[in-house]
């Protein structure tokens, strides 16, 4: 029995779900809006906590997903549902019939310029974590010019009423420490500071990474949110924060400031999501049926979700969800 399963999104969640569904004898079809599979993770250099090359993981996933029918540079333009299942029209006008839909549309990176006081897009040497990762991958970034002092700001676009994101973005803490170590590897003489509020080292080996960051890499963790950034005569960045553990305001000049941008829901899927009748939760991510046992289910039968479209998630979380969604879909088809 071959049944079509439409998977929207070809990132880690979509690829892994497709791989599993294919192994189960179903016919997954991936629709990916960009020109390649891999999603955000394909843009990443190394993964926390063990500095494993992201390419390794992505390559393996690409290898496994090879036989799956994939549309690149394509979006779902319209989707209808009847008793036979789902009928989607793609942006290339092709039509796809499917028994079930998996939304694996992932996340968007918070637009750092929205946090105006950090001056991203205004002060030259303010950059985002995504851009820093690109620097690690390519070794090129005009802003990084043998810096002597580098700062990381946590929770940019997260835990912040002022940008309407009250949730924690989960992976930024660990990413910040990973990147802090990496930048220290590139510039061993540089002083590296992270400005955090809580260091949420939630996974196996993550706390060890924290310890390593402190002990081996001499990264200085300051508890306090950076409150404003400005530029001095030389184009260096002057930042202010409270050292909350010390209870005094603190001021320092940095060469580069990295903003740990949060995850927001990928909004390009909103129209299709609405057509499918999947609502958003208060954080703006897709609403799941149940936090414990129904994390892949939506209010609509046959519409499933996996990965960061429902909440900020790490790569292992996402892959776990992708595998579990495959089981859910399989059970749904064979119900």
């Amino acid at each position, binding site marked *: 029995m071959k049944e079509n399963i439409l998977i929207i999104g070809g990132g880690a969640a979509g690829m892994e779900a497709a791989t599993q569904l294919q192994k189960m004898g179903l016919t997954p079809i991936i629709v990916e809006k960009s020109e390649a599979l891999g999603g955000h993770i394909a843009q990443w250099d190394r993964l926390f906590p063990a500095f494993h090359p992201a390419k390794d993981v992505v390559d393996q996933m690409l290898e496994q997903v090879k036989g799956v029918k994939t549309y690149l540079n394509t979006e779902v333009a319209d989707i209808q549902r009847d008793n036979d299942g789902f009928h989607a029209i793609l942006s290339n006008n092709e039509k796809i019939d499917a028994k079930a839909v998996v939304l694996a549309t992932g996340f968007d990176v918070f637009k750092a310029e929205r946090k105006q006081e950090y001056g991203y897009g205004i002060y030259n040497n303010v950059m985002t974590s995504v851009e820093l990762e690109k620097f690690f991958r390519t070794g090129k970034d005009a802003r990084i010019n043998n810096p002597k002092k580098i700062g990381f700001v946590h929770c940019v676009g997260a835990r912040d009423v002022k940008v309407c994101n009250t949730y924690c973005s989960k992976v930024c803490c660990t990413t910040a420490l990973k990147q802090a170590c990496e930048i220290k590897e590139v510039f061993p003489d540089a002083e590296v500071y992270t400005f955090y509020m809580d260091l949420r080292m939630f996974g196996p080996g993550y706390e060890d990474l924290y310890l390593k960051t*402190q002990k081996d890499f001499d990264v200085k963790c300051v508890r306090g949110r950076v409150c404003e950034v400005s530029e001095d005569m030389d184009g260096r960045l002057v930042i202010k924060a409270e*050292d909350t*553990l*010390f209870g005094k305001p*603190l*001021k320092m*000049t940095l060469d580069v400031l990295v903003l740990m941008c949060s995850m927001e829901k990928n909004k390009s899927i909103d129209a299709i999501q609405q057509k499918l009748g999947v609502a958003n939760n208060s954080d703006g991510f897709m609403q799941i049926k149940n936090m414990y046992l129904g994390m892949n289910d939506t209010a609509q039968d046959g519409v499933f979700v996996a990965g960061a479209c429902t909440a900020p998630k790490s790569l292992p979380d996402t892959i776990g969800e992708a595998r579990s969604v495959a089981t859910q879909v399989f059970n749904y088809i064979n119900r």
Partner: protein
Amino acid sequence: MDFGFCLSPSSHVKMDTVDLTTFNRLKETNPDINTCIACGSCTATCTAGNFTEMSFRRILLMLQRGKEDEAKKMIQRCMLCGKCTLVCPRGINIRKILLDITR
């Protein structure tokens, strides 16, 4: 002219100019010093802390924020009882560091 008031000094910790000599000296012999997670266990258990402001966590911070004089003043309160070392979740040899600061 006496205006009846004058400029106040800034309380900002100026990280650009802070003197870390003592902290770096300690770091050489006690690399653990970097691993403090500011949990406050040392302060909570401190025998002298029961009567004074004594807090090892703060002493470490003072040294990193250029307030060496304050740190040394606070250390005077210490009774060296060693409870802090026993409760530190990162296993920092606090008593040793305290002694090293004093000499």
